[in-house]
């Protein structure tokens, strides 16, 4: 028997490759589509209310009546987790919206037109990057005060920088590409070159970044709520629920555990989506 290569390809892989299915995307959809439905229509999955106190069933463990158990007020954890879904999804989306639009625009303009504008953007980039991200957010929230809106503001002020840097370097690379130079020689107007030739290739890495940024923002939002600086009670939010559960950890582990699983699941869903986009756009 000949043993000649470093490693042999597993048989299962031949089967998977033959099917040519984007497994990442499939898995991402299996996770995210139900999550989306739950976010919009939490009532379809539970008949209880997130604010229903039930003093007969305080700190009861997971059971048929309360799938995820109850907290110190007797509120059903399962219901609370479901009703909190839309909040973290909103946090994820709104935290990337402004940075994506504003940051990408700035980056593209800086990269394409260069000159003093580019230098200005680069200086701002250097300054913002010198601070640790989380600390900067905290500092801004220290100034503005706690709350979700302030969190969006803080993330917007700091977050656009990453998009600017990303799109700027993509534009610089594109500029050197031959098809752009060909377009310039052919005398196409600058806006036309920008929109039809440069933008499509520059925007795809940014979109992939958006997806992984959503994950980061959800983690950020839940972290801030956990610390008491984000979403304020009594609004149910996954991070805040985890914080509530910490005091009861030895008696009622379920209060902190299940909201965390929710965050994990949503994060995995978006990560898989991002990976499938990378494959789709052939960015690796």
């Amino acid at each position, binding site marked *: 028997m000949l043993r000649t290569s470093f490693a042999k390809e597993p048989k299962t892989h031949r089967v998977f490759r033959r099917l040519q299915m984007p497994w990442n995307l499939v898995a991402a959809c299996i996770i995210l589509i139900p999550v989306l439905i739950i976010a919009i229509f939490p009532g379809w999955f539970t008949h209880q209310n997130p604010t229903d106190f039930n003093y007969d069933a305080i700190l009861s463990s997971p059971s048929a009546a309360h799938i995820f158990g109850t907290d110190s007020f007797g509120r059903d954890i399962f219901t609370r987790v479901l009703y909190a879904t839309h909040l973290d999804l909103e946090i994820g989306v709104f935290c990337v919206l402004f940075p994506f639009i504003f940051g990408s625009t700035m980056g593209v303009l800086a990269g394409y037109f260069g000159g003093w504008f580019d230098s200005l953007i680069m200086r701002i980039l250097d*300054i913002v990057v010198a*601070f640790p991200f989380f600390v900067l957010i905290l500092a801004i929230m220290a100034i503005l005060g706690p709350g979700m809106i302030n969190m969006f503001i803080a993330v917007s002020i700091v977050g656009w920088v990453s998009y600017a840097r990303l799109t700027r370097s993509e534009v610089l690379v594109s500029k050197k590409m031959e098809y752009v130079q060909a377009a310039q020689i052919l005398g196409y107007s600058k806006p036309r070159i920008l929109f039809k030739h440069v933008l499509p290739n520059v925007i795809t890495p940014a979109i992939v970044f958006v997806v992984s940024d959503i994950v980061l923002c959800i983690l950020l939002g839940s*972290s801030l709520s956990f610390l008491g*600086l984000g979403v304020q009670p009594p609004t149910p939010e996954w991070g805040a629920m985890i914080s509530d559960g*910490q005091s009861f950890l030895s008696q009622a582990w379920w209060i902190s555990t299940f909201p965390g699983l929710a965050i994990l699941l949503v994060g995995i869903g978006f990560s898989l989506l991002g990976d499938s986009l990378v494959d789709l756009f052939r960015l690796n």
Partner: protein
Amino acid sequence: MQFFKYLIRRLLETIPVLIVISLLVFLMIHLIPGDPAVVMLGGRATPQALENLRVEMGFKDPLYIQYFHFLKNLFSLNLGNSIYYHVPVFELISSRLGVTLNLIVYTALIAIVLTVPLAIYSADHRNQAGDQIIRVLGLVGICAPGFWLAILLMLAFSIKIPIFPVGGYSSGFLNVVKSLFLPALTLSFGMIAILVRSLRSSLIDVLKTDYVAFARVKGISKARLMVRHVLRSGLISTVTLLGVNLSWLVGGTLAVEKVFALPGIGVLMIDSISSRDYPVVQGVTLVFALLVVLINILTDLSYSVLDPRVSLE
């Protein structure tokens, strides 16, 4: 000799950054809408207390004079006094900085120790069962919130199976190792996930190269091949990533410190924000920024040491 010249130049280059950092930190209090004194003491403070605070903090002087005083104080390590604790900020920070630094170093060590073997195993057994499991675990490590993992670990190894202390911190090497283990492990999960993914990818790329093939032709042992050739080249890009991750860690210890009740500067920051103790917030922000600058310099230096192609120009 060239190395020291590079070091000096790098340090000089950070001076403009440091100036900007000091400026921004200084401006923090003044960016808050409203009268700074009222913001700090609250709406119910007496007019006399407000006036005392204004005099003490020098709020009546024009901004540039205040900035000048601020810088002057910085150089004598005077960061003002804490409103809440009534002690110099510098003392507060220096008594707690050690805990946070220990935690960061501990986390980095665990991450490095675990990343290398995991990445080598992954690259060697590419796409087989073990590699897939590691990748899934990596995904979990990145997407799971740190504070949640901290709580789970505490539940498992401090409460259900009491091996480690539930929280708190005491000095003495053995105590530090014990009390910081779970926090450091928590923080390292995210780092390990990212680093293994990067190192594995670098290793796979390196394994494909001609120079690894040529090294195998020489007939050297697989172990030596892995360490001297593959790892050395593969580590370079991962080191930069390590530096970036360490920067994240600088602000990232906050939640874990809170969960495990560690007396570090992260907890100090959180509490000070809640109690609107702005001198402390300023001071901690400054320290954090300085740490990041330091880490960036160290990363650059180690990169130039690892890769002789990078000229120290």
